[in-house]
């Protein structure tokens, strides 16, 4: 007995010591004290644990990731209990393209890459033209997921269709399969800041983008985990985008919140290309009683589209 206990003790203590050593030794532990810090001279005022205001040199501050990193399987599984849905009110859109700006900036997209395209649409010859912001539909029967040969694009339990840029082989079958033309390809090396490029890829932020892989709107699951709305929703001054959870039956554009089922019923919400059977998660409210005339959006057309308009 004595022998067994002492051997067990030795092993347990040894493992603990090794674990402690590696934990403090690795650079990953943000709470381990640094050996040497070059003082910058700049002071920052902080509130200490005791409630006192203290001044610390800025060099001592280290960025701590605001959330723990998720494993690839967790990213592929999704947020439990949610079924994300987007409602886009076409009566409010004026082609400001603030959504596009915010999305492109937040995801460090290259010039020319737009995950949100604000399209000038006209159903029939005699019907009136309108502006239609188009994101990824995050279909419930996604044709892109069906055809991917390596499971680089996948559907999660929270309804989102995401892309694993570490696995994508760049065959572009998903781009051929998507009827909404929503996917964008990295034909050349993405232009990224060093800090962004150095991070490991996360399916939830879709960053950093990699050359030779495909990308698209991801409904900003990283924002959802923090309890915030996607960048397009918050950046639209006209409240065009409403984002929410079908399980909670609510969508919001930040300022107003609606019961999703009632909104769709009252305003006759519909989905794009319903007859294809893709079952998109984006609903559109028809452009009735519009806030702005269609012409007010013409000035904001991209140069290429101005020519062909």
């Amino acid at each position, binding site marked *: 007995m004595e022998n067994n206990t002492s051997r067990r003790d030795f092993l347990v203590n040894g493992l603990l010591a090794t674990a402690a050593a590696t934990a403090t030794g690795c650079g990953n532990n943000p709470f381990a004290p640094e050996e040497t810090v070059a003082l910058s001279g700049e002071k920052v005022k902080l509130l200490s644990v005791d409630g006192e205001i203290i001044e610390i040199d800025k060099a001592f501050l280290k960025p701590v990731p605001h959330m723990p990193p998720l494993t690839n399987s967790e990213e592929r599984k999704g947020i439990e209990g949610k079924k994300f849905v987007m409602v886009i009110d076409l009566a409010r859109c004026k082609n400001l393209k603030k959504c596009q700006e915010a999305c492109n900036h937040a995801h460090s997209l290259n010039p020319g890459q737009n995950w949100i395209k604000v399209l000038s*649409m006209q159903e029939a010859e005699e019907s009136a033209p309108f502006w239609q912001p188009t994101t990824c539909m995050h279909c419930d029967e996604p044709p892109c997921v069906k055809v991917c*040969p390596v499971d680089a694009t996948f559907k999660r339990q929270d309804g989102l269709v995401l892309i694993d840029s570490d696995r994508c082989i*760049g065959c572009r079958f998903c*781009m051929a*399969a998507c009827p909404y033309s929503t996917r964008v*390809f*990295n*034909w050349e090396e993405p232009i990224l800041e060093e800090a962004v490029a150095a991070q490991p890829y996360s399916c939830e932020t879709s960053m950093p983008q990699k050359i030779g*892989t495909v990308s698209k709107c991801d409904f900003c699951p990283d924002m959802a985990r923090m309890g915030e709305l996607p960048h397009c929703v918050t950046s639209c001054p006209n409240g065009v985008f409403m984002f929410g959870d079908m399980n909670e039956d609510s969508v919001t554009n930040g300022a107003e919140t609606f019961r999703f089922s009632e909104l769709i019923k009252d305003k006759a919400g519909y989905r794009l290309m319903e007859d294809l059977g893709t079952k998109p998660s984006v609903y559109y409210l028809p452009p009735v009683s519009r806030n702005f005339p269609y012409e007010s959006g013409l000035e904001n057309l991209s140069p290429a589209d101005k*020519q062909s308009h």
Partner: protein
Amino acid sequence: MIWTYSLILICLIGAFAYYRQLSKGLAVTNMGDYVSWGIYISNFVFFVAISLVGSLITAIFRLSNMKWATPLTRIAEIIAVSAIVFASLIIIIDMGRPDRMLNLFLHGRIQSPIMWDVIVISTYFVISLLLLYLPLLPDLKIMIKFKERSSNILNKLYLFQGSFWRGTAEQFKISERAITILCITIIPVAFSIHTVTSWLFATTYRPGWDSTNFGAYFISGAFLVGAGGVVVAMFVFRKFYKLEKYITEMHFEKMGRIVVMLSLLYLYFNINEYLVPAFKMKSGEEAHLKGLFSGEFALIFWFAILIGMIIPILILVFKKGRKPLPMFIAGIMIVIGAWFKRYLIVTPTLLHPFLPMQDAPAEFHHYFPSWEEWAIAMGTLAGTLLVITFFARIYPIIPIQESITEQDETCMSLPPTKRHE
């Protein structure tokens, strides 16, 4: 010599272009977010189509006891093997991340049509290679026997590949059995490779691709372009290796009739493919069809139809047209028409997406391949021809043993007065 050196030059330019593509990414091509598949993919379809000829002439003809086609089997088989190898190469060239190719095997999804293509093409390659090798064994023995006719290196190669073949009745029995089994299995595999390739398009919603006709349409086109390719090869080998005694006018006559039949069959499928949607003119398909018939693609479309099908039919329907030289011309027309036809299958559809092409760079609104794309595409075509050329210089392009056996059999079946040495 000029032939070989120009092919090597084209391959080298292609290799340089590919080096540029590897360093800068696919941006060196003129593909964009709308035309995300370009001439690499249409070249891929073209290669898979041509490689079906192996199953046609080697397997189908052999199983139907069409013995006159025996001298043509090796030509057909090397075209098949070479084409399917370059089909795989051009697909790898088209990938955005060829460095991640192993993901196809580590994380492969069996639900994806691309996986089906990988499986059936690999299978077809193995069977075709065996159908090239097994009938070659008796010929290797003959080459070894006449070792003074070949260089030392070639003799070593022949010994390495075929010294175990002694030509005993036992070995012939096993070989015949194996070849028959391979011939039977290659037919469904051949049908699979081109059907699955057609499904890369038909499993999408796009106008021009969303067709139930695609499997049969592609296969009939494949047999046609393969037969056309064999006719061209027949003429060239016959002329340059002076094989008039083995590839006779009878062979051209018979192949001519077969090519006419295949052209008519392909024409029939084309009529189905274009006339029926044109009758309905669904709004999604209207822009696409009008673009082909009278719009930006009209020139290529009618060129492909006329040069690839109609004129060859008109040439080959007459007996005078089934002589070697007119058939050679018809064969070239069929192959070139077929290449443009494959281009028409891939690009026009992608330029007519469901939603308008807006909020994208202006270059994405049209597509003409860049010099790198042309260089690489032509490089793979040159590579295919180079493999066939080198093969014909190393191995006998006409199956010697099988021709001898067949001549004997034909001889013995004639009455004694009609037999001759």
